[in-house]
């Protein structure tokens, strides 16, 4: 058994220690004899590709699941029994990767679920509960009525509620599993300020993210998992970005160059054309994506960028303006119509509208192309399997099995399945909404490489995102802010300008 090389017998200096932990789900080994040592008072990053087992370790560290073997220590004491949730909650707080906000309850109740403020006797005092909730929301500068229903919050607001709740326990050890996946730039900064303030008070963090720049900005040390195994750990300031990625992927990192395919000529006709498009969340959007071109549509949370994209895909209906494909006007409001016109897309939320968890990878990947699998309404299972296998190969989906239920894949691979479906019909127009949310560095590249590949087949690609990494693949970028098109960048741009436009601020210097 490999043990931690860090030799320290002073148990008190470890906020959390995990040794020899393994965990298997059916045929999948999610963790193989891993260890992790988080020193008290540090912000410790845990990185690894999708499916490396990070979230599984989180569920073990927070007492939601028992490891098959191995030990967990928190603050020098062995982890409590699984049944004793209270004891776990006192020692470790967590923002889970999947939201645990309960839609039916009010914001205040979500913040204090199962620890509602008790008034006189054993009775809940709603007044005090709302007051305390308002106070907590105020600390996060969140202007949300504590009495409002969580269902009506935006996804970002829900993420804040999640974070605010986790950090309000007063736990000395906090785990954050991809907390920024749903936050925009300002939101991330606000979170970081909080984390730093708490760290100053001696709180320890285990921080999980696929945004490596966040690791370098925030964390002191880092542990890398790969293929369910521990690979290495060390101090962040002694690691370069390249070594980190190499540890994660197990491959040499190629020198990074401009990933964009050659831009198509100005005069090429066709592609996607939005003219004065207006809807409930956006106004007067005019945009062209030529065949062979990748255009970014950037905006922060609540900007309306997804609504614009959804209008193109048939998921939403604009009130004014036109969408044309190859100069032919598209009647919006129907996905099948959009598909027939040549639109393929990745929807913004892979869990809600992307995957059918219970169906196989093959079924999911080929769901929108039944006409390619047989004639007259028939589907040939053989052709389907072959077609799906080809998509799996093109997108490098792991494990490369057609008959694996899609729900059992890791987040990044699930996203690839959704992308496979988007390109399955060789679309003329490919719309990618938040294509790399929650996706590891390597998968990000391979996902966006799909977009590049699509352009080589002559597709017009629209990437709808708030991730600057994604925009590196774009020839041009349009930025929307609160539903209005505020900036257009051609060919070369400074990230800071894009971010400024996304946040709706004027930069003070030049």
């Amino acid at each position, binding site marked *: 058994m490999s043990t931690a090389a860090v030799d320290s017998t002073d148990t008190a200096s470890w906020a959390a220690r995990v040794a020899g932990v393994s965990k298997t789900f059916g045929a999948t080994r999610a963790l193989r004899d891993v260890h992790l040592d988080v020193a008290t008072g540090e912000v410790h990053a845990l990185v690894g590709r999708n499916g490396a087992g990070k979230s599984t370790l989180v569920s073990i560290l*927070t007492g*939601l699941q028992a490891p098959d073997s191995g030990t967990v220590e928190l603050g020098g004491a062995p982890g409590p029994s699984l*049944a004793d*949730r*209270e004891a*776990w909650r006192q020692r470790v707080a*967590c923002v*889970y990767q*999947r*939201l*645990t*906000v*309960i*839609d*039916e*309850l009010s914001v205040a*109740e979500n913040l204090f*679920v*199962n*620890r*509602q403020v*008790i008034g006189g006797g*054993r*009775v*809940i005092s709603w007044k005090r509960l709302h007051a305390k909730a308002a106070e907590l929301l105020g600390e996060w*500068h*969140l*202007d*949300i*009525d*504590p*009495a*409002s*229903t969580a269902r*009506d919050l*935006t996804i*970002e*607001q829900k993420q*804040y509620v999640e974070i605010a709740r986790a950090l309000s326990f007063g736990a000395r050890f906090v785990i954050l599993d991809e907390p920024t996946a749903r936050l*925009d*730039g*300002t939101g*991330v*900064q*606000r979170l970081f300020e909080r984390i730093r303030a708490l760290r100053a008070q001696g709180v320890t963090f285990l921080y999980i993210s696929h945004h490596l*720049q*966040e690791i370098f*900005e925030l964390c002191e040390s880092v542990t890398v998992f790969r293929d369910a195994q521990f690979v290495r750990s060390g101090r962040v300031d002694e690691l370069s970005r390249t070594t980190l990625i190499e540890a994660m992927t197990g491959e040499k990192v190629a020198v*990074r160059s401009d990933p964009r395919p050659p831009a198509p000529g100005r005069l090429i006709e066709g592609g996607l054309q939005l003219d004065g498009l207006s809807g409930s969340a956006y106004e007067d959007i005019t945009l062209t994506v030529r065949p062979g071109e990748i255009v970014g549509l950037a905006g922060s*949370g*609540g900007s309306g960028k997804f609504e614009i994209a959804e209008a193109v895909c048939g998921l939403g209906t604009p009130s004014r303006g036109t969408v044309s494909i190859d100069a032919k006007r598209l009647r919006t409001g129907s996905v099948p119509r959009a598909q027939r016109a040549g639109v393929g897309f990745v929807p913004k939320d892979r869990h809600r509208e992307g995957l059918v968890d219970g169906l196989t990878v093959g079924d999911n990947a080929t769901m929108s192309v039944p006409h390619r699998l047989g004639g007259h309404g028939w589907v040939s299972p053989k052709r389907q399997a072959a077609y799906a296998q080809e998509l799996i190969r093109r997108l490098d989906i792991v494990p490369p099995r057609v008959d694996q239920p899609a729900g059992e894949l890791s987040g990044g691979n699930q996203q690839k399945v959704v992308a496979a479906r988007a390109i399955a019909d060789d679309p003329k127009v490919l719309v990618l909404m938040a294509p790399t949310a929650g996706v590891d560095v390597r998968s990000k590249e391979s996902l966006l490489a799909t977009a590049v590949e699509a352009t080589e087949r002559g597709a017009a690609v629209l990437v709808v995102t708030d991730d*600057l*990494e994604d925009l590196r693949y774009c020839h041009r970028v349009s930025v929307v802010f609160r539903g209005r098109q505020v900036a257009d960048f051609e060919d070369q741009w400074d*990230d*800071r300008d894009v971010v*400024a436009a996304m*946040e*709706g*601020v004027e*930069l003070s210097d030049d």
Partner: protein
Amino acid sequence: MTETTKVEAATTPPAPAAGGRNQLSLARFRDLALVPPIILILIVGTFVSSHFFTWNNLSDVLVSMSWIGLLVLAETLVLLTGKMDLSLESTAGLAPGVAAWLTLPGGVHHGIHVLSSGWAVPIALVVGVLIGVVNAVLVVKLGLNAFIVTLGMLITLRGLLTGISSGQTFFGMGSSMTYVGTASWLGIPASIWICVLAFAIGAVALRYLRVGRSLYAIGGNVDAARAAGIRTDRSFMGIFVVASVLAAIGGLMLSGHLASVASSQANGSIFTVFAAAVIGGVSLNGGRGSLVGAFTGILLLYLVQNVLTFAGVSGEWFDFLNGGVILVVLVITRLIAGRSRD
């Protein structure tokens, strides 16, 4: 690499919180959505018969719905946690049935008289507890679907009552068993008191006690509730047992009211129970609904039946109108509330 996004943006609040107050009043509104139809029925009834809007008649309606009211209360609690219990109707028959069987003399009363009649009520409650435990074990420990488990239990328990009674009607039970169905407290029938108090206590517990709130959390998102430290399995166990015991009490009230336990007692009532809960705004998906709503649901259904009876609707069209009313109320509340009450 690209520089990190560090912009000194004014800390704009992320998306304004529209409609906090409205939200609350909408929820309140949904609780009381059936009040206008109830008032309408009261007015219609008054025109149909001068005997309708009298204390005597209304108290008869309340008495006759009190037992099923407890079943609606029980079902609402189960539904809030996102489960279902179809077997409540059988429990309402079997619990008093077993009590009668064990305490009544043989002969015309069909009992076996192994216990004195004072044991009747405790026996019924114990039967309720046992049924609840069996349901809970099958659903929680074995992870079976609640709908199908309680459907199987519905058939089995009903069959058990037919078995022990040989299909006959138990009657002539002692005063301990008929007490709740017959007594009056402060001039109001005890069964009305019990039903109304049970709803009131339930409503307070759901609003002001942690254990009550936890039902909403469990029904809303069981994984989240578990992560928040709520002992979800224990809650499911508890709620199945509480529901069965409430059904047993409801059954006792019904058999007290009828001074007998027919082997078909309460058969088919689960349809009415579900209809009442749902038109009262309780979600079948868990986490949403209130006891006030559920109470107005069953009240509305019983008032409608009462008015139909006064109106002399002929027997063969009774069920049709009754079912039609459920559908119409569903559609109207849906259109008014403007969103799915599922």
